[in-house]
């Protein structure tokens, strides 16, 4: 009950966020130098013709009316046409989104699979050689640029050994898994290093907590002490970190998508920026803002599920 009302109140909080994002994007585009009407008309256009174009684009209206139209367009999914791709921005983004989503989730999954068990092993053997070696290896992962790891994997495993494709996305689910394995691993090597460090220190913090001692004093099997009492408590801060680093993860995908030629929104963003494709940049920025908001919401929901003290609407 309280979980549902918490969810609803959290959902409502997104509305002002979206409004602010839309205002910023709207103003940014208006603040760009140059008159769109002049850009669209030919050089010999008269003042009257320019005025006509402005009327057609709605640029003669007051700013707040223009904003209203912009908001209405956003909600009806009309983000204008991409200059670069000569297609509606909405359609382009929808086409490219699945590859990026797949890659991001794949990378998160990899990160958790790599970081989770190793963090536990390191924390439970803290300051032993096991701990030290696990931490050193991750330190390398953390301090190596993502694109470099990507290039190394690409050169050796894809180009030389030919175990993996050098790029693309494939068409079926299994093909996606195969094509995106190296890109996901590339992103995950970095993310898992962050998660590992965080989870290791929270496990160390939790493992000597009084309630863990008390759980042991109950005579519970170690499996339950660690799984039910330690892991769950340690995960809270890691979930926060994972949610917050999703921006980091997205920029990681941006680079990775470029290195591995994955047809995703990250690479699209890069192309759009280089081509000064304003409608596309605007659409993508909006999309990223929406995605980040949803991920933050999701993070909060997972936290509330983990920690009953947070379920306060």
């Amino acid at each position: 009950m309280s979980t549902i009302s918490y969810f609803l109140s959290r959902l409502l909080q997104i509305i002002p966020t979206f409004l602010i994002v839309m205002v910023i994007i709207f103003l940014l585009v208006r603040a760009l130098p140059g008159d769109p009407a002049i850009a669209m008309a030919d050089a010999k256009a008269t003042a009257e013709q320019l005025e006509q174009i402005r009327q057609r684009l709605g640029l003669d209206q007051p700013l707040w009316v223009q904003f209203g139209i912009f908001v209405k367009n956003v909600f009806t999914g009309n983000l204008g046409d991409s200059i670069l791709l000569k297609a509606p921005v909405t359609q382009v983004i929808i086409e490219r989104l699945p590859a990026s989503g797949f890659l991001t989730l794949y990378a998160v999954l990899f990160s958790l699979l790599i970081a989770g068990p190793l963090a536990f092993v390191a924390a439970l053997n803290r300051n032993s050689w096991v701990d030290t070696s696990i931490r050193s290896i991750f330190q390398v992962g953390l301090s190596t640029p993502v694109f470099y790891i990507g290039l190394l994997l690409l050169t050796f495993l894809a180009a030389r050994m030919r175990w993996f494709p050098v790029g693309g996305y494939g068409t079926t689910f299994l093909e996606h898994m195969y094509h995106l394995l190296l890109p996901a691993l590339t992103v995950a090597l970095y993310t898992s290093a962050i998660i590992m460090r965080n989870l290791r220190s929270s496990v160390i913090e939790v493992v000597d907590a009084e309630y863990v001692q008390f759980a042991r004093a109950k005579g519970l099997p170690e499996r339950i002490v660690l799984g039910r009492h330690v892991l769950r408590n340690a995960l809270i801060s890691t979930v926060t970190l994972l949610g917050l680093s999703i921006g980091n993860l997205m920029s990681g995908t941006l680079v990775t998508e470029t290195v591995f030629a994955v047809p995703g929104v990250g690479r699209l963003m890069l192309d759009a920026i280089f081509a000064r494709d304003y409608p596309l940049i605007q659409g993508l920025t909006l999309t990223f803002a929406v995605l980040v908001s949803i991920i933050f919401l999701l993070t909060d929901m997972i936290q509330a599920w983990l920690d009953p003290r947070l379920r306060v609407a």
Partner: protein
Amino acid sequence: MTQSNSPLLSVKNLSTSFHVGGQKLRAVDEVSFDLATGEVLGIVGESGSGKSITLRSIMGLARRYGEVTGEVVWQGENLVTKPEAQMRKIRGKDIAMIFQEPMSSLNPLLTVGVQIKENLVAHTELDKKARHHRAIELLELVGIPDASRRLNDYPHQFSGGMRQRVMIAIALASSPKLLLADEPTTALDVTIQNQILKLILDLSQELGMSVILVTHDLGVAAQTCDRLAVMYGGKLVEKGSTRDVLCNPLHRYTMGLLQSVPENVEPRTPLFSLPGTPPSLMNLPKGCAFAPRCAHAVEACATTKPPLEGTEHQVACFNPTQAPDGAGGQS
């Protein structure tokens, strides 16, 4: 109250040490005592005297962090050397423990019901439904109103006193024969303190359960315990019936502790306090740990650790307030 001859628990020369930064820290030093069925034994002393570690060593919780030697004889077996898997069957079942901080000793993420029931899962054959009933019964036993509804509440929805009751309910889940209570009332208001102490005593009588109560509060010890053991610097320095120890203290430290309790004094009278501070366990004096603070120390105190002497009322002191019974005190 059966087999009153052989003690329920017999602790012999129990020592626990930890390695801290290359140094060996001896938190519990050759502690010995017996506990009869149904008896309430108090261990009193200042913070850092090794009281809690003694309890955790009996429970087998200390050995994960340090080195435990000596014997803890329970039903003919030495718990100190018992393998972890077997120890787990005793822990929480025959010997239960409650902790000092009811705020931090319950898992904040799990409902109280889950935390009671997991004990029942580990130690009883009850099915899901029976466990649920038993959990309600336990909460009622420790005086939590509206028990069946509160089972689904989380620890943060309980007050401090109620959390301590929950902890007691968890400890009692599998009807233990011995309850180790580590400062169970220290974190609570005075009024709640009395309720909790009374609860522990009532339950001990009702269920025939022995209790070891660790406290730094002599008042608490006086109201609840049959016998007292005074601990200082990891050692037992005095041991005897509560009446003997409190009315007729033999050790200079016990004497000092009693003098620190204000009693029948005029307002604004300065409180008596023992001079000096408890010794660091990192470098205990060679002789008696209390000697540096003791106004009555003799030559031997600085060089030799005094042994615990006497029969019923024992003391470890070269210059006690009076000679202990049985043994002739060297003075």
